């Protein structure tokens, strides 16, 4: 199909899905992070805006995750089995986080007139929003290091990096959701998150250089450098856009930055799905399955894209005027 092996096309679909999940799912998780970290005189407004921004889209944003899992077990079944066994523990933590987060969000919205309960579920929502991306990050890190060493220093750094990335994306997105002083709060938070993200990125690279030289070497390959350098540059662009109050540009920059980080990592791993063990070609399901999946993805995509457009059209067309 299109002169490419089917597994390469499926891998492209996977990259798109992972990127969209990292951006939109990440923004959701990050919203939870800022919910916990809400502070200052406009604490309540910040939380309200977060709830307002996440409400209509969070379920959709998390379907990307389900889609990724399904893609993995349909098109690369041996890799799915190996990952599930190797990363059993951190994935279980991710799951507990996702369950509690979704439940807490829905529960909180139904108990707002109570005294203590909204606070309780708010905390659960926030903490779960930190736990899930952290353990996701350790899964990615552990996968990169090899032997599923998700507790290795590099993997733990990637976990922290993932949380910071979510927080950065969310803060930038939130500046586009609201006008007035609350927007300034998120503007500051976006800049802080970018600095923290850069620091953690340096820490991750440092830990790779010290404890996992093969990872460091892979990240310095010519194929992965463009992604990593783009991501670093865009970090500066995000801060600059926020500084000059170009919120829409900041939003675009943060999306490209996220994609660049992923592509840099993806390229450093290629052609391996599980480093040293399984390449994409080795893990691929038979071509009949891959073809059926691709056809299905095209049909599904044809329904999905207009629906997504409608969703964002209805809820994300203009920032809220907030008297704050």
């Amino acid at each position, binding site marked *: 199909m299109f002169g490419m092996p089917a597994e390469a096309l499926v891998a492209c679909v996977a990259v798109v899905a992972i990127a969209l999940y990292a951006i939109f799912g990440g923004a959701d998780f990050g919203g939870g992070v800022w919910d916990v970290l809400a502070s200052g005189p406009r604490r309540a407004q910040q939380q309200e805006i977060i709830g307002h921004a996440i409400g209509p889209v969070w379920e959709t944003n998390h*379907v990307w995750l389900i889609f990724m899992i399904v893609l993995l077990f349909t*098109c690369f079944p041996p890799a799915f*089995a190996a990952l*599930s066994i190797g990363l059993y523990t951190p994935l279980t933590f991710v799951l507990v986080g996702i369950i509690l987060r979704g439940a807490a969000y829905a529960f909180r919205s139904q108990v707002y007139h109570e005294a203590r309960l909204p606070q309780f579920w708010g905390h659960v929502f926030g903490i779960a929003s930190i736990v899930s991306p952290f353990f996701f990050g350790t899964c990615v890190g552990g996968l990169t290091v090899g032997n599923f060493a998700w507790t290795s220093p590099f993997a733990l750094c990637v976990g922290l990096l993932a949380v910071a990335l979510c927080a950065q994306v969310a803060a930038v997105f939130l500046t586009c959701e609201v006008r007035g002083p609350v927007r300034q709060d998120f503007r500051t938070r976006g800049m802080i998150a970018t600095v923290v993200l850069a620091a953690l990125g340096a820490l991750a690279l440092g830990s790779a250089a010290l404890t996992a030289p093969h990872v460091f070497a892979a990240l310095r390959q010519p194929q992965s450098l463009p992604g990593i350098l783009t991501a670093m540059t865009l970090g500066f662009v995000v801060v600059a856009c926020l500084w000059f109050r170009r919120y829409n540009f900041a939003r675009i920059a943060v999306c490209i930055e996220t994609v660049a980080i992923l592509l840099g990592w993806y390229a450093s791993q290629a052609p391996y799905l599980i480093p040293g063990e399984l390449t994409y070609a080795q893990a691929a*399901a038979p071509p009949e399955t891959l073809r059926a999946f691709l056809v299905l993805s095209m049909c599904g995509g044809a329904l*999905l894209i207009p629906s997504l457009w409608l969703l964002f059209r209805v809820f994300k067309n203009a920032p809220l005027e907030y008297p704050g």
Partner: protein
Amino acid sequence: MGTSLAFHYIFAAIGVGFPMLLVIVEGLWLRTKDERYYRLARTWSRVLLLLFAIGAVSGTTLSFELGLLWPEFMRHAGAVIGVPFSAEGFAFFIEAIFVGIYLYGWDRLSPLAHWLCSFPIAISGALSAAFVTAVNAWMNTPAGFRNDHGRAVDIDPVAAIFNPAMPTEVIHTTLAAYVFAGFATAAVYAFTLLREPANRYAGAGLRVAMLVGATAIPLQLVVGDISARFDAHYEPIKLAAMEAQFHTEAPAELTVGGIPDDTTRETHWALRVPYLLSILAFENPHATVRGLDAFPERDEPNPVPVHLCFDTMVGTGSLLLAIAAWWAISTRIGTKRPGTWLARALVASGGLAFVAMEAGWMVTELGRQPWIAHGFLRTKDAVTTAPSLDIAFYGFTILYLFLATTLAWLLLRIRTDEDIQVPAGAIAEGR
């Protein structure tokens, strides 16, 4: 996994069936401009918010658990049955998008556009149930591949979706979702009517719920009968376990109730109807029905729970049909108030529908044992080798129990609190 699945099954079923109620109630509001229907629709959309959120996270969990608990099953079967799962993924995507628009779009869309957004929810909900059930049907009657010493080769994903058991099982399960959603909602409003006879919304809510439940239940019994006949041809060992048929017989009598004894190979205290099983299974009173003794013992499911669950399902299903008929006749399809005893029966019907649905699921799962994919992979060979499985199992069970309790508590409060705040202007303007 069983815990997660049983938990998810409840919410998924309501998630499939409940949007149909919303389609009807909001449509009724648009047609009649009766503000009771509007308030019901607003109340129910809060119910949907909670149920869909929990259904979505428990569904996410399941997609992971397929790998976390059954890695070997997925390694062998993933390529064969992944495609319907992917189709389910897309259906769920559409459902999630329109649920978002529906729940949060009350003030952003015109009433007609808002109502139209409830259709994709109901349709994609039914479709996602259909795709997932297609996978379960595949586990019962695997198709679309060749078994080459335990490896699946020559895969044909389309044939895997349209496996022999798929049509009946899909319809049976989807209808079960409508039956359950209809009767469960009806039970809540019947209970309200008993406690607060003056409640203005309970009558309307009960009517909409019973329109769905009472339409689905007779269809369900017909499809159930077709499924059993299907089993007679394609899954005879499951039928034998369902009917506690230890010995091959011609003509075969139907065993109703009773407790099968696996050691003496006999069923005690059962009601036996001569010829009936032969008639039901093969439409011929003298047809031979194979018993469990016709199959190797190592392929045999435990007939005790399978038979008990099967009879429970049929029994509760028949009771539901009787209650639905009683409702249709005595209230003239919901235009008159139900009497006290009917209301009590309707309250009970919620529990009966739940029991029927879970029992039906147990029949298909336990009736397939010891296989996870019949004739292809055994359950014990499919389970994960990862350590500390039981800690995770107890942890998830406690977590789910906690969430279920909170959810039930919140849902019950929504019902009591049905007088939700509707902006006064909204109704006057026809919104």
